[in-house]
């Protein structure tokens, strides 16, 4: 059993999506407790990946691949996990999007990977996400945090528009909003009424932790 957990951990750490999914399926088929599978197997791998990234040992490709392997395992285990009342493994739910009109998704992908590595349930809406879609994701996912990314000075304005739209819909108090991206600054974040900002993925996770306390 210990060896199986070790394999699960390594499948994530090595970014092997297919292997992670297969191991998750194997665990379910043999009737293993999905919570234990997460805690003792896959989560250990993703936590380790996040730690190695923070320490500078892992580069972006390793981190992103590990996060995707983790997601692959989660997809298999998701339904069974939901049935377990004592499933409290999640730190929080995060919806991420690169704003409308902006197709640059790498920065947001990195933040998503790092969030995943730190136990968040990440819903990545992709890039060039229409503002309305962010709003509807708040209803559907009920996230703790919404993260909005923009790489261009011409698209960062959309961060402001999304926040206004959320406020007008009366949902501003339901979520914390974080903004990021190359042209974005702390001043901008404060000006448009976001709750948090960071200029790198490691600090983004720390900021998320502070926001949902």
């Amino acid at each position, binding site marked *: 059993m210990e060896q199986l957990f070790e394999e699960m951990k390594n499948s994530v750490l090595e970014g092997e999506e297919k292997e992670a999914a297969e191991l998750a399926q194997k665990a379910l088929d043999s009737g293993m407790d999905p919570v234990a599978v997460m805690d003792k197997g896959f989560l250990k791998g993703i936590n380790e990946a996040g730690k190695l990234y923070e320490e500078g040992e892992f580069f972006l490709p390793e981190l992103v*691949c590990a996060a995707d392997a983790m997601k692959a395992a989660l997809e298999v285990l998701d339904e069974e996990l939901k049935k377990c009342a004592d499933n409290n493994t999640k730190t929080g739910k995060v919806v991420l999007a690169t704003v409308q009109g902006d197709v640059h998704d*790498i920065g947001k992908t990195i933040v998503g990977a790092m969030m995943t590595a730190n136990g968040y349930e990440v819903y990545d809406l992709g890039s060039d996400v229409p503002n309305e879609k962010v709003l509807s994701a708040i209803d559907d996912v009920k996230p703790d945090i919404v993260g909005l990314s923009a790489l261009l000075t011409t698209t960062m304005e959309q961060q402001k528009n999304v926040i206004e739209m959320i406020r007008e819909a009366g949902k501003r108090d339901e979520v914390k909003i974080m903004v990021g991206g190359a042209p974005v600054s702390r001043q901008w974040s404060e000006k448009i009424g976001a709750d948090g900002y960071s*200029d*790198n993925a490691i600090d983004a996770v720390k900021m998320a932790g502070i926001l949902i306390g």
Partner: protein
Amino acid sequence: MLMQTKVLSDEEIRSIHKNSIRILEETGVKFPSENALDLLEDAGAEIDREKEIAYINEDMVKKALQTAPKEFTLGAPDPKYDLSLPAAFPTHNIDGCGMYVLDHGSRKKRPGTTKDIENSFRIFQTMDQGSIGWAPIVAADLPPKAAGVMETGLFYINSSKHYQDEETSMKGVGYHMEMAKAILGSWEEVRKRKIYSATYCTVAPLCHDHIMLEATMELTKYEAPILAYPMPACGSTGPASLFTNVAMANAEALSCFVIFQLCNPGTPIIYGAALGSINMKSGIFLEGAPETALQLTAMTQMGRYYGFPTEVAGCLSDSKEPGMQAILEKYMNMEPLIGAGADVVQGIGLLESSMTLSLEQMIIDDELFRYAVRMRKGIDTSEEKDLLEDIKAVGPEGHFLKQKSTRKLFRSDEFYRPKDLIDRNSHDEWISLGSPDMSSAANKRVCDILAEEPLRPLDRDTEKTIREIMEEAKAKLSS
């Protein structure tokens, strides 16, 4: 392909060679040594005994270039640091002959001491790109005539790499070789392993120094390699055009090949250069000028044209402190040398036209060197680097972070990853690290290295012997 720097065409190289031969034949070179003049005369040179000038003909040069080996190894006490020449990629060595130190604690300039030299050797030992040691300064607390031998001893006590120094006395040669024998165990090994070599500076224009010439001739008996190191400065000790100053420096270098091949045919000689220009107002030798870099690059090309290993001054600055001017000048003169294929770039650590040692500058220069080497490696277009299949797999949109090739190549030398000296963090991360700059990061590294236990590579008996030789040299050479 590799990044390749050229400041001379093939035709221009041949033209410089021809001019150098004319200089040797028509103007001649002064050899203030009866022994040297005898050897040169026997070999066919016309000699003016009164003026001590030898007129060296083209045949003599041809013969010297034939008997000098094109490939050899500068051995190190620890064979893992052996430097086989020519090298696939360049290494660097410490600059030498300074007088002062920018104290790494107070950052104030003061006369250099034995302790500073030891510190520089300890730092040099940690640098995997560093191949050849040289005392960066003449320590003010050592008797000047014994300083060379004492510093050689200090090097072998603190480092296990190759050492190169000037021969400033006949007795000094003996002490240097005794040290090599103490480390290697026998004269045969001294000849074979070559853990010591000599820097040999000609005195521009077109002179050899009496003592240094005779002492270095003595050294050829031990088959030790010699770095021929002409250093005329445009307008003062050399003509004012780069083209002709290079031709004269090359003539001086060729005269070294001739005399040392006559002393002992087969003596390994490294083709070197430390040319420059001068401050037109003060006459001070200028190291950081673009014209210095151009001439040194030309000399590197000349050395490679003849097919010999090259070791060229090329990490030079006239700046008084580590900082913007130092970075500008040092990188400017280092990169083209490396691009021209220099085997060893001399030398790291000095500022103020090679007068003042900064331990931080050693660390910074090592980093500049790494950048220049990455530039030299150029763009690899081999099959491994053809990633068209990845483009097909990712398609328009998406990203390449998850491609196996990305993971692999991020870990390879396709991308140079600087360590602590270069800041590539986000602004917030940089602030949280205390807003480090290159100089403060280098100072931290210096302090970290010096806080470690010294290496002391020699066994106790050998170290004792080396110290005895140092003491004897101190007593006998000082008087």
